[in-house]
């Protein structure tokens, strides 16, 4: 026996149910279809192209009267259903009663009208059906017409774009902070807004509509801030709500929408529902894909087959010609989520994947959405993407398979692939810089800024150089810092500064260290970089220092140590000499030697005696000479005007002042200085890291000399007129060296890398910068200028310098 199926609502959802039903069980039901609109079924989501004029109504019709007739459906279009009598199983309408065995409710949704004054004025239209669309098309025929669209969601923006294409002057008012906030993150929202504005559509976000102004028809829209936007029509597109009036009146269970189970059956087993009117597992849907999923299941249920709808993951594309936008899933930030982002600001490309436990849970794409479907597939399937994570963001063309040869991978990147995240530089910009003449890493850095901030992309940039130039590119000898990392010292210094990394574990994490706690190569360097860059925050790690700096004495080949007290500027006194002699006697120091830096060296002190000998020397006013430090060693002087008949200035006094200002400062490598009182240069200032030659008219400061494995004369930095200016120049030079040099590069090596002109610009020419460098140096000194001997000369510390236990007697049992 053929049952009677009554369908309320002739939209896309019910149309799809009937299609499926007629395929699987063509003769199961006599079907009666009620539709509020006086026409058949059309593809509602294609209304936007109709509005914009890119399609006609005829092109978007899916089921016309002929189709329904061919399947024996009795169509009652334009006839409003007024009620459902579930006890008697009849549908009530203007024409009377229609009995049913099964009822399918597909009443869709109704546009949400915000309850503001003037909402009922003529000229205020919603954007839901063909009538709305035609009303807007008619309004747009008036030349110079102005439209205000309230709502910057999917529908509102499509309406705005359509009206703009129809020649109207369009303003969008959106309540939230960025457009399409349910589908887009703020970045993509911003790109979209910029894109719309470039099409001449004004977009005002955070604009709460206060009133629609007009006497007998709409004239303007006023927002909370008081601004009025003149309007000939107002399109209200703030959202939709499930249309459940009939269902509620019939006593069916409803929440936001009409409740259905997984078989699309309502609380009455004879009544099914599909589409935007339903609420399934707490979700209401306003997009077409879930409707189609529901329709399949409803058709099966009606045909007596098994089927279950388990909810839909939805993706969104904005149907505005020329705007490529795709979003799917959940893309809010959360602690357990990670993200992969690709940006090309210049071309308006933005791709963001939100990952949770190695699975994609959210996708936002803007500007280039070609891979949207692929990402959405991975999202829906819950695919584990850990294997292809490196290239995931570049889409299916680069994903999976064997790990790519790094060169091929770089060569295969699209031009808009972002290489430098810090500066937002993409591959195309870099390759054009390279072909434009920037054939070295530094050249690329100077031209594009790529790799000049944190440096993590340096490897990529070098590969680009190599790919672009081929054999013409000679890779620099940029060695990784150590085997724990691929980053160079320079990369790490940039990383520490740009990401404000203030602890070693933070650097290991950010720099992708391959070891758990570094090694003897990187740890001392990192310790220096961190204490140099963050004097206030970083706590010096003694266990990351070389033995000499840890013990504040120089280890000798037999494991004993040498002790060198500071003699300021090489000046000493009989009392100090007596104290040194006494200490040498007391601790049986085998060798006492005068050093090249005008100090006295006590060699052969046992480790456990160090704190005691320091205590004795401290008592005589002597402090650590830092003869062991990557820091200021000595300031060597001649006797100057005090005694010398050729002396032009007080070289000894200046040397002492310099030493008093600079002692205790940690530097990338040791720093030796000297002050000579005249150009005869008895203090040998012209082979030091910093040397001062006094002349009648002032002080000639030169830097970057060497007298070790390399011998090199200093280079002239600047001439100062006063001692204070000399001191400032020296402090500024030392500080810029501290902030920029690679660990274990003496100043002469570092200056050779950056160029003396680079240094001069910042230390000599730019007086503000010089002052800033001096201030930073002094600040660091306020923290680090402490005598390590005094700190360690007390008794409790002394224990740690002795053996922990003596088993020589114990084991003799």
């Amino acid at each position, binding site marked *: 026996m053929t049952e009677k199926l009554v369908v309320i609502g002739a939209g896309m959802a019910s149309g799809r149910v009937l299609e499926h039903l007629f395929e699987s069980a063509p003769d199961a039901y006599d079907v009666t279809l009620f539709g509020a609109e006086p026409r058949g079924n059309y593809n509602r989501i294609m209304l936007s192209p109709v509005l914009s004029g890119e399609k006609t109504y005829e092109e978007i019709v899916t089921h016309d009267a002929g189709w329904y007739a061919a399947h024996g459906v009795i169509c009652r279009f334009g006839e409003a259903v007024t009620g459902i009598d579930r006890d008697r199983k009849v549908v009530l309408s203007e024409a009377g009663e229609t009995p049913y065995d099964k009822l399918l409710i597909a009443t869709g949704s109704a546009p949400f009208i915000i309850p503001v004054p003037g909402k009922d004025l003529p000229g205020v239209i919603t954007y839901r059906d063909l009538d709305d669309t035609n009303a807007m098309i008619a309004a747009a025929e008036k030349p110079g017409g102005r439209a205000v669209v309230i709502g910057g969601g999917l529908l509102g923006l499509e309406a705005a774009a359509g009206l703009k294409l129809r020649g109207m002057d369009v303003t969008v008012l959106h309540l939230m902070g960025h457009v399409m906030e349910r589908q887009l993150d703020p970045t993509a929202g911003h790109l979209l807004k910029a894109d719309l504005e470039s099409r001449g559509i004004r977009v005002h976000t955070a604009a709460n509509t206060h009133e629609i102004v007009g006497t007998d028809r709409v004239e303007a829209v006023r927002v909370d801030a008081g601004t009025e936007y003149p309007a000939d029509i107002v399109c209200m597109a703030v959202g939709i709500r499930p249309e459940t009036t009939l269902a509620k009146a019939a006593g069916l269970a409803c929440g936001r929408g009409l409740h259905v189970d997984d078989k699309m059956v309502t609380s009455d087993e004879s009544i099914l529902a599909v589409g935007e009117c339903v609420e399934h597992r707490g979700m209401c849907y306003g997009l077409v894909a879930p409707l189609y999923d529901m329709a399949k299941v409803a058709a099966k249920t009606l045909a007596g087959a098994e089927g279950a709808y388990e909810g839909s993951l939805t993706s969104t594309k904005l149907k505005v010609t020329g705007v490529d936008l795709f979003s799917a899933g959940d893309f809010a930030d959360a602690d357990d989520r990670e993200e992969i982002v690709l940006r090309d600001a210049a071309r308006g490309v933005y791709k963001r994947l939100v990952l949770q436990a190695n699975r994609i849970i959210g996708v936002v794409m803007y500007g280039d959405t070609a891979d949207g479907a692929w990402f959405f597939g991975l999202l829906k399937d819950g695919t584990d993407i850990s294997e292809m994570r490196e290239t995931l963001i570049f889409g299916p063309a680069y994903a999976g398979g064997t790990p790519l040869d790094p060169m091929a991978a770089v060569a295969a990147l699209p031009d808009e692939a972002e290489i430098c995240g810090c500066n937002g530089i993409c591959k195309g910009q870099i390759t054009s810089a390279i072909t434009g003449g920037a054939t070295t890493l530094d050249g690329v850095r100077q031209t594009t800024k790529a790799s000049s901030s944190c440096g993590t992309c340096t490897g990529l940039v070098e590969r680009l150089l190599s790919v672009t130039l081929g054999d013409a590119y000679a890779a620099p000898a940029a060695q990784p810092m150590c085997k724990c990392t691929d980053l160079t010292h320079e990369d790490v210094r940039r990383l520490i500064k740009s990401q404000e990394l203030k602890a070693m574990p933070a650097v290991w994490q950010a720099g992708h260290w391959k070891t758990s706690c570094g090694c003897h190569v990187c740890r001392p360097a990192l310790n220096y970089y961190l204490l140099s860059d963050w004097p206030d925050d970083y706590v010096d790690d003694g266990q990351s220092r*070389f033995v000499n700096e840890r013990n504040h004495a120089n280890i000798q080949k037999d494991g004993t140590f040498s002790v060198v007290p500071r003699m300021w500027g090489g000046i000493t006194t009989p009392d100090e000499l007596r104290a040194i002699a006494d200490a040498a006697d007391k601790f049986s120091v085998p060798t006492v030697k005068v050093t090249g830096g005008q100090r006295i060296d006590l060699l052969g002190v046992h480790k456990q005696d160090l704190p005691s000998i320091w205590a004795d020397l401290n008592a005589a006013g002597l402090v650590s000479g830092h003869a062991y430090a990557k820091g200021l060693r000595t300031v060597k002087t001649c006797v100057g005007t005090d005694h010398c008949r050729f002396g032009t200035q007080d070289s000894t006094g200046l040397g002492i002042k310099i030493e008093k200002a600079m002692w205790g400062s940690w530097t990338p490598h040791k720093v030796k200085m000297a002050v000579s009182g005249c150009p005869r240069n008895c203090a040998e200032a012209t082979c030091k890291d910093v040397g001062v030659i006094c002349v009648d008219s002032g002080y000639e400061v030169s830097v970057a000399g060497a007298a070790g494995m390399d011998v090199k004369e200093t280079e002239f930095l600047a001439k100062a007129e006063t001692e204070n200016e000399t001191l400032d120049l020296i402090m500024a030079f030392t500080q810029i060296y501290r902030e920029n040099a690679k660990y274990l590069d003496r100043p002469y090596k570092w200056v050779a890398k950056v160029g003396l002109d680079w240094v001069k610009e910042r230390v000599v020419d730019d007086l503000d910068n010089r002052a800033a460098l001096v201030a930073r140096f002094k600040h660091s000194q306020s923290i680090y200028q402490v005598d390590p001997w005094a700190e360690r000369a007390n008794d409790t510390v002394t224990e740690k310098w002795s053996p922990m236990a003596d088993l020589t007697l114990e084991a003799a049992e």
Partner: protein
Amino acid sequence: MNAQTETWIDIGALDDIPVRGARVIRTRVGCVALFRTAKDEVFAIDDTCPHKKGPLSEGIVHGKAVTCPLHNWVISLETGLVKAPDEGSVQTYPVRVSEGRVQLDPAQLAQGAGA
């Protein structure tokens, strides 16, 4: 002494050894260095680098290895073996931490000396 039973003797508190550092103990067979890693593991090895007798206790501790302070040979604290490309080995000794105290087996120490 009964070779079948382990007799552990107390050396001192774990906290007496700096993290990623070392302390030395004197024994009949020379100085032995007790190392404490970042993960609070403790190892005991001879305090003498096989290269030029550098005091390993003064080296930088990283992972389960120490770098000799004199010429940067890297020695495994677990095995006493010198890491390539250098060659050699250092005697290791059983050591344990019990209730925050570092304990050594003196018998093993004597055997080590004989080995």
